[in-house]
């Protein structure tokens, strides 16, 4: 079991000794049981940190924000920033380092192991009808929820998020210090949700009908992009109507910027956005599943990403987020990459 007190102590020590600028972690939110991301800078704030089954957020996102802010203010950090990282968050940090977004010494990784469980899926949990929930905690292979009518103990596998059920590496391999053990687990097979989808939609027509309906529903809130640590582009292709303007952007550039995708949430434009995003994430997506979790209209975005992840792993033998030392997927190749589809 990851020891919360040990995590808090470590965070406190790092801040008190001035070894890090800040600690990115989780604290209890104000809206019921869910935790929320927090950045603390004072040692006494370490006591507010939490680690429970509602720490869904991929905090690597805030490392990106931090780098962007430093860049904008033309500053260089003199100390690393510490971050609480689950297995998936740590993989995201590895991809960012692979892409030279920051260096290993810029970040101090407070790893936390999900051990045999992971994060709760609030929608699955809602089906159990516990009503308003005050808090959630780990207990071995189970979760315990405190409700108005007392504690409820549930086998984690019943309410785990799909991404956690299918997780290969619930342990942050790259870390400075880690809380909790690397434990063997017997959970659903990798790509279980994808395989089930493929079994149910075998024909081109079935699949088109499904995805057409999904893309029609998108309201273009861009939460999937906003929550993704890999979507760090200063200017996304969907912003081509209103892009980032720097002092040296000329009127010429502004006038002639291509408009790839309109702002209207039409099926065609939505599809252009989601497909491009999926391809931009190929070999980079570490399946934290955050885009899927936050989508307010529940578009199963994870299916798109895991479909490409499976190709990346099985066809190209590439393991996203596994190592800083290998080149990123799209900037490398193998002589024996498949070419039989080419005429």
């Amino acid at each position, binding site marked *: 079991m990851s020891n919360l007190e040990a995590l808090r102590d470590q965070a406190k020590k790092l801040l008190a000794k001035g070894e890090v600028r800040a600690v990115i972690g989780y604290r209890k939110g104000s809206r019921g049981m*869910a*935790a929320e991301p927090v950045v603390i800078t004072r040692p006494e704030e370490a006591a507010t940190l939490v680690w429970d089954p509602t720490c869904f957020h991929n905090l690597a996102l*805030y490392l990106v924000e931090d780098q962007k802010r430093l860049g904008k203010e033309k500053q260089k950090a003199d100390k690393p920033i510490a971050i609480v990282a689950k297995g998936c968050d740590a993989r995201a940090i590895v991809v960012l380092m692979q892409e030279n977004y920051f260096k290993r010494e810029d970040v101090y990784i407070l790893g936390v192991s999900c051990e045999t469980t992971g994060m709760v899926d609030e*929608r699955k949990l809602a089906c159990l009808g516990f009503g308003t929930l005050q808090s959630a905690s780990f207990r071995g292979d189970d979760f315990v929820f405190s409700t108005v009518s007392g504690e409820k103990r549930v086998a984690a596998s019943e309410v785990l998020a799909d991404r956690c059920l299918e997780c290969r590496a619930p342990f942050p391999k790259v870390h400075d210090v880690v809380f909790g053990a690397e434990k063997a687990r017997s959970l659903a097979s990798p790509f279980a949700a994808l395989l089930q989808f493929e079994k149910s939609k075998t024909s081109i027509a079935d699949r088109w009908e499904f995805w057409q309906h999904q893309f029609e529903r998108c309201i273009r809130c861009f939460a999937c992009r906003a929550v993704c640590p890999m979507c760090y582009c200063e200017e996304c292709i969907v912003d081509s109507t209103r892009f980032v303007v720097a002092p040296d952007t000329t009127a010429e550039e502004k006038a002639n910027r291509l408009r790839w995708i309109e*702002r209207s949430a039409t099926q065609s434009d939505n599809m252009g956005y989601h497909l491009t995003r999926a391809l931009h994430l190929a070999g980079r997506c570490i399946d934290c599943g955050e885009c899927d979790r*936050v989508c307010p*209209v529940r578009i199963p975005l994870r299916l798109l990403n895991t479909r490409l992840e499976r190709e990346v792993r099985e066809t190209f033998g590439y393991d996203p987020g596994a190592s800083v030392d290998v080149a990123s997927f799209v900037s490398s190749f193998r002589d024996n990459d498949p070419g039989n589809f080419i005429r």
Partner: protein
Amino acid sequence: MERILDKGHLLDWVATLTAWEVFAPGFQDGIWGYQPVSPSAEVRLEHSNTVQPPKNFTFPQREVFFTYDQIKGEAPKIAPIHPKPKQRVVFGVRPCDGRGLTRMDRVFNEQFQDSYYQTRRAGLAYVGLSCNQPTGPNCFCKSVGGSPVSSEGLDVLMTDLGDRYWVSSVTDLGLALLEVGGSIFSEPAQEDQNQVRATRIAAVSHPQRAVQNTAVVPSVLKESFSSPLWAALAQPCIGCGICTFLCPTCHCFDINDENASSSPLRGSRVRTWDNCQFPDFTMHSSGHNPRGTLASRLRQRVCHKFQYFHENFGVLQCTGCGRCISECPVGIDILSVVNQVCSAQVNGE
């Protein structure tokens, strides 16, 4: 007019509304949303609340204003496009969303009347359903001037009495809907009267989360423009559009020309939803941005709801539906933001 409707007769009533397109909450794709009701469909009003408010009925995500068609060297031909008037009834609208409609009316139906909104609004009837219990943990309608039994913005208000609904008309349009139903309804008995009274009292007495000292919030926020708390509270914000796109009263939009062909020039001028949380929302073409930080954009959203709208229209814009709280990916909680900023200001922190 007050009537009693057996739950088993709800669809019979719907069937009599032949002059209207009927919508009701349905569970599809893992969420509750408003769906067209087909004669064979089952209408389920036991939903908590829909993920998206019924805003789309009056203010769709995309509205085409006109098309243009221009052969090079000639004057463009402009063809105005306007929605066809439609008679629509939406069942199961919660009181917070009914009040949301009245807030949209203030924006689109008063100074500079928006004919697109008006046309869609004119043929629209809301058959509301009062909330016997808060629909979610983040409801706070009572502290922003609403109530779980409010009929504001609704044409008919229904209250669930177990095996039947208490149905009362609110507007003339609502009365017409009841009259169409005719004998499907029955006269309320004294017992029904007693029960609806008791149900509504119980509904209103359920505890909710709350905005503190609502009456002074607009004036306190006005003093809090430079509060350092805005930056602290906006820290986890990821700048997505969930809070505003799911809001029953957010109405910001963008207008763009969408070209289908460049030669001859053909396309349409289109209004789409826009969002004060996107960084480029207020960015000038020079790059200057009056609201360039997450903090300033959070402040804009909160102050628009709780201060600016109140200063302009005398009512709060927020109706307490709680969607922005429940669906925020990182737990930004408008209630907590308002309460923290205001209490810090009042206590001189």
